[in-house]
């Protein structure tokens, strides 16, 4: 479903992703782990098409569609979702308005019918509650006055409402206390489905205690250094990322 081949990309002329290849089949959950600065967020932003992230080689396709050729909003409509490591605040634009505009823009882009205000609000209330937030939060400006953990849970609410084909969750688990981590993990498990793929970017093993990935990849200096089954997480926890570099070298 998500096919990344030999991806080379960078910021301001500095190469950060260095020939990264990764295949995320339909219905699977993979995790990318790696030390700080290894390029995890750069991968996420490059896939989403953020300004300033320049692709100098390779390809990335979602369901066979070339992502790199599309504008960021077109990538979203094609089914890509990015949960941001640092969600943005947008004062004055309510979460409700923001998300409804997003859902309907995607539906229009795909030639589908828009969702009615009533149906949308009902669904949103349900998801807000599932992630331990209230409609009161949803009526406020996007992420305005939200704690770090609330912002991350809001990323999950948005994912649940948008129903993407491929979700890339960039450290959605960092900054969460243990209760919030469980809430997010339960959400990810609930949103796992045979026609959705999820790429969990994480720095710690913690989340993977609750969400068992099909595969784990270790990112080092802009490429996948090694891949393995779920048992790799515990190994990393024990031996650290440095052991991996020795193995890869």
């Amino acid at each position: 479903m998500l096919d990344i081949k030999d991806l080379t990309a960078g910021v301001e002329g500095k190469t950060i992703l260095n020939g990264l290849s990764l295949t995320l089949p339909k219905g699977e959950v993979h995790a990318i782990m790696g030390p700080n600065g290894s390029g995890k967020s750069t991968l996420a932003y490059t896939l989403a098409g953020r300004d300033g992230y320049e692709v100098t080689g390779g390809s990335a396709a979602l369901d066979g569609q070339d992502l790199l050729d599309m504008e960021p909003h077109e990538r979203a409509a094609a089914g890509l979702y990015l949960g941001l490591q640092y969600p943005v605040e947008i004062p004055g634009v309510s979460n409700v308005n923001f998300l409804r505009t997003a859902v309907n823009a995607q539906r229009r882009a795909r030639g589908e019918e828009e969702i009615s205000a009533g149906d949308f609000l009902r669904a949103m209330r349900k998801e807000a509650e599932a992630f331990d937030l209230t409609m009161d939060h949803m009526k406020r400006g996007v992420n305005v006055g939200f704690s770090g953990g609330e912002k991350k849970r809001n990323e999950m609410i948005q994912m649940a409402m948008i129903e993407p084909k491929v979700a890339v969750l960039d450290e959605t688990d960092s900054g969460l206390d243990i209760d919030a981590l469980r809430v997010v993990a339960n959400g990810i498990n609930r949103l796992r489905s045979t026609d959705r793929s999820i790429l969990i970017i994480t720095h710690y093993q913690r989340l993977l205690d609750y969400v068992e990935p099909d595969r784990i990849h270790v990112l080092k200096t802009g490429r996948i250094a090694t891949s393995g089954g779920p048992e790799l997480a515990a190994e990393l926890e024990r031996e650290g990322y440095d052991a991996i570099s020795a193995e890869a070298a």
Partner: protein
Amino acid sequence: MSERPTKKDEAWRYADFDALKEHWPDSADRWETVDVAAGETKRELVRLLPDPDLVSDVTRLKVTVGDGGRYELFALAARSRYGRLEIEATLGDGAHFEFGGAIIGKARATNEFIVRVNHEQPNATSNQTVRAVLADKATGSFLGKVYVARGAQKTDGSQSSKAMLLDRTATANLKPELEIYADDVKCAHGATVGELDKRALFYMASRGIPPEIAERLMLQTFVAEGFAELGDDKAREALEADALGVLEALR
């Protein structure tokens, strides 16, 4: 009739003189007077909507608010060439003056609010809120002065002005100014000129919102801040709708 102003006149320094000369003095050199009696409240809405056939449009109001009276003025300035709204308000004891305005300009439009509030008596309050959205080579200006006379104790005057430049070629002149001769007063002012938050635009795009809709959503709420103090929901929504219409035609 007075002489046609020049760039040297402080209150006219950002005016479009080419546009102005066609109308001076007939329409431009005229002050309307507004009197708000003691204890009364008066509210006015001014809409200077885009009009390609109108070269210049100058509205000048001299407002006197009696003791304990209240005057509210909300304005949208979006003339295609030159629009100017000038207000001089003189407040009695305990009176309030409220000004809320939005400027929206594109192409070579010049729109400006010139506001002078005279706190001649004690205990009066005034509040001015201006938001400007400027594209292309448009100019938007706010010259806002709060004058506090000797003896006008307990004056509270605040001004907030913000401009959003959609292109580097647009110009915003925000000049809040205080002239204070009393010692027991509270006056606050702020002025900022900025651009749309790129992080927010990317965030919206990553959710599937196309750039033109994302931009409009952000500008709509920004401009609405200019009308936030308008208590009548219906009137406020109508003004916001007019502003949205102008915003939609910006790009």
